[in-house]
């Protein structure tokens, strides 16, 4: 199930699982990957000073998975040969739990760090996923910017954050 690498999931995330998938892929290609950079975003206990009880993430899953494939494709253009895995969790998450896990494998480490950073920036920009924070005294839908995968200025911003 190769597309397990790019998924919306309800169960707890495991960055190890992502790395293992990428290492297996790299082995199948006949060469080890050399470097794997991973990123995990976890639920913080406070939001602008308010105590967070828990979060809920909602996704438009079929489109989110397509977006992850798009991000993989963009990474392939900038860092040829990079292997990418992205899991985003949905449903209720407790403080400290991982909401997103990303792993990128490349032959050398500079590319792994850059492509992994690019991936998380793009996930935040364009994945159809929403965070709903629940406090002691209310709740809040977090809203960033409207998702527009074709927005070249946003792509450029992600690239600059990855490489500079």
């Amino acid at each position, binding site marked *: 199930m190769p597309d397990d690498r790019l998924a919306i999931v309800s169960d707890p995330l495991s960055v190890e699982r992502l790395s293992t998938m990428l290492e297996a892929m790299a082995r199948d290609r006949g060469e080890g990957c050399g470097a794997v950079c991973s990123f995990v*975003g976890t639920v913080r206990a406070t939001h602008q000073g308010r105590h967070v009880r828990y979060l809920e*993430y*909602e*996704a*438009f899953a*079929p*489109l*989110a998975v*397509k977006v992850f494939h798009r991000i993989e494709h963009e990474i392939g253009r900038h860092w040829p040969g990079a292997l990418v895995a992205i899991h*985003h969790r949905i449903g209720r998450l407790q403080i400290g739990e991982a*909401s*997103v896990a990303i792993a990128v494998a490349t032959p050398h480490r500079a590319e792994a760090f850059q492509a992994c950073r690019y991936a*998380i920036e793009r*996930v*935040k*920009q*364009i*994945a*159809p*996923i*929403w*965070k*709903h924070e629940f406090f002691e005294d209310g709740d809040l*839908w*977090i*809203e*960033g*910017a*409207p*998702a*527009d*995968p*074709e927005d070249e200025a946003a792509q450029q911003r992600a690239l600059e954050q990855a490489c500079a």
Partner: protein
Amino acid sequence: MRVKVQLFARLRELAGRGECDCEVPAGASVGDVWRAVADRHVSLRPFGGAISCALNADFARMNAPVQEGDEIAFLPPVSGG
């Protein structure tokens, strides 16, 4: 013609539902579908300038034409990660 509409996150909450059918004239665009939905759920109107749209689970522009049976999704600003 009839199309299927999906609303997510705060749009879903404001409309009180995540899915509904919507009747629009032949030749309608994604934008026409949005206006029909926002007419029915006036609390959605302020979002008009800040949503993304998907047509059959692919991103689409407001001016994309829709067909009978299409699924049109309206997405508030995103906050994954």
